[in-house]
């Protein structure tokens, strides 16, 4: 039984074709702030409006975060329940370091860059630390350790340990030391482009890791750990590297989030948030990079827009038993996820692949191999 990833890749177009398509997609996305595309109901306004750009930027950051989760779950088969803590490390890290460095006399550009570097280093260290402990066990135990560690961090954040994290209120961005072109409603399109850049960077990082020898070893180790060890490779180290790389990528998305939202609250460090990531990745299609992206965008649109949609006449007029569930984005997301897991494990992208595949006899999107490998 070969891996689901292998069979998925076989169906895709040749390399240069895909790069060309990717470039076109990025170009189109980059141009959106300059266009006036309007999708009523889905977008709050035409694509050049700050409201819409904020939603889209948020969607891209969540997509980037989902991609980093895809790296550990989809590629390496590690079911982590604590990934949100690295995203929170990025967002909170930037906020805290900026606030600490702002009073010093340093020029604000230096402070800003230094803050980013420090935050990423912290994320790297944290990723290594958590990974070093958690990867000593595997399967469900690994999941439990990550859950417990993330929970502890969440509690510490909420209790305002050291007076740094601001408790339930969270941390706000020290705007004074942030470059002007990233601040203010008028610069929303810059934030949008920043989010796009982050998504592209994270995507390329994922591609690079997956294609590298490291990526192949980790995927092989997921299928058959013994064989990998016999070849003289150390699954533990490989997974640790991947885990901390994913942590840093999550932190990058967190930094973008902080800049976009101008604040961070403990909600982003909860296990619920990580579970949402899990749902996003599987819903989009675990094992596909594009699955993470699609899932992230669908989730954000649901999350951001459903409230508006719910107050619209169409839904407000429905009887309570329909209206209440339909007004809750996580309910819809959760139930979609349940349906996907039960009937279409390949997720949205998996379904799309099945539909667009022309050759008969091609393997159906069976349960992704990654879902079968884990036992306690």
């Amino acid at each position: 039984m070969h891996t689901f990833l292998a069979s998925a890749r076989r169906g895709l177009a040749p390399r240069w074709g895909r790069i060309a398509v990717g470039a076109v997609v990025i170009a189109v996305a980059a141009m959106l702030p300059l266009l006036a595309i309007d999708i009523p109901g889905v977008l709050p306004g035409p694509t050049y409006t700050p409201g819409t750009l904020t939603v889209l930027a948020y969607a891209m950051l969540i997509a980037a975060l989902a991609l980093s989760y895809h790296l550990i779950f989809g590629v390496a088969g590690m079911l982590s329940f604590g990934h949100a803590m690295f995203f929170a490390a990025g967002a909170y890290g930037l906020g805290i370091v900026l606030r600490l460095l702002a009073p010093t006399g340093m020029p604000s550009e230096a402070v800003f860059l230094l803050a980013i570097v420090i935050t990423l280093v912290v994320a790297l260290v944290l990723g290594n630390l958590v990974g070093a402990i958690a990867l000593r066990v595997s399967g469900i135990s690994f999941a439990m350790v990550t859950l417990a560690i993330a929970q502890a961090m969440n509690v510490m954040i909420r209790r305002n340990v050291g007076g740094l994290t601001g408790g339930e209120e969270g941390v706000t961005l020290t705007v004074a030391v942030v470059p002007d072109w990233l601040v203010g409603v008028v610069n929303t399109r810059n934030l949008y482009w920043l989010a796009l850049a982050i998504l592209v960077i994270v995507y390329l990082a994922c591609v690079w890791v997956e294609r590298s020898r490291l990526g192949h070893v980790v995927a092989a180790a997921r299928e058959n750990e013994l064989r990998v060890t016999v070849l003289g490779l150390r699954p533990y180290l490989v997974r640790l590297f991947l885990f901390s790389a994913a942590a840093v990528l999550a932190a990058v998305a967190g930094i973008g989030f902080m800049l976009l939202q101008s604040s961070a609250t403990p909600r982003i460090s909860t296990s619920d948030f990580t579970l949402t990531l899990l749902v996003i990745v599987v819903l989009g299609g675990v094992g596909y990079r594009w699955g993470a992206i699609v899932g992230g965008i669908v989730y954000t649109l649901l999350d951001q827009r459903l409230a508006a949609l719910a107050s619209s006449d169409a839904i407000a007029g429905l009887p309570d038993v329909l209206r209440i569930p339909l007004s809750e984005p996580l309910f819809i997301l959760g139930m979609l996820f349940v349906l996907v897991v039960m009937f279409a494990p390949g997720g949205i992208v998996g379904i799309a692949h099945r539909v667009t595949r022309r050759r008969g006899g091609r393997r159906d999107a069976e349960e992704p191999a990654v879902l079968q490998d884990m036992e306690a």
Partner: protein
Amino acid sequence: MTTVLLLLITGVGLGALYFLVASGLSLIYGLMGVLNFAHGSFLTLAGFLGWEVGRRVGDGSWGGLLVGMLVGLVVGALVAAITELVFIRPLYNRHIEQVLVTVGLGLASVALFEGIWGTDPIQIRLPEWLGQTTNVLGANIPNDRWLLIGSAAVVLALIVLFLQRTSYGLVIRAGVENRTMVTALGIDVRRAFTIVFAIGGAAAGLGGVLASVYYGQVGAHQGTSLLIYAFIVTVIGGLGSLSGAALASVLVAVIQQLANFYLGGTGDLAVVLALAAVLLVRPTGLMGKVTH
């Protein structure tokens, strides 16, 4: 000395709550290999419905509370059994999908509860005695702890009796050890799965109502926060071991109380460290016996 006694007894009281939630998780994982993320929702729903019915019978009265507890028990059992039949059974032998489904259901149900009852917890009225204290050797123990400890002890005894004395109990005990061999004896374990879900759901349901007594409120996120502790307790005690869950519940709760009091509110951190320690030293848990 009285402080230590107070912390110990209130710790056991909290441990009783953890046990009610963890007992089901442990049995479900032990028998089925499923980490049930929807368990917290059984708890929350039972808590809400127990309160809704109880306050209509007699808001703040003993009658209302007892009816509420009964409702919680029944609701928990029913919802759990239905969940198993509709969502888990069709995914027979696909463990990760089963876990994922419970994750999705957990997320969806909490959102639903928020939609129905709102995002803020609702304060509830309780019989006066529960808010008072009893003096034990100098320590003033809040009376709600006695209710918790008593209920958990009764539940533990009933579950043990069921496991030891009934034929389904026999199947479950064997299945926790070696589910595959049970099927190879010609026994349809799927019925045992539903029963274990129902038992776990009933205990969690009762736990949901008692949690609202303990916290003085019902809220959409009550189950989720308790669930994490229940998971930790289950893993420390040993997945699949009921006695392990009982022991770990008390240990974890007492550690939490002591750390909160003597180490400046670091109870949660202490619990996490305990989990990490157990996992690194004895990954199967204190009394774990899962072999499959």
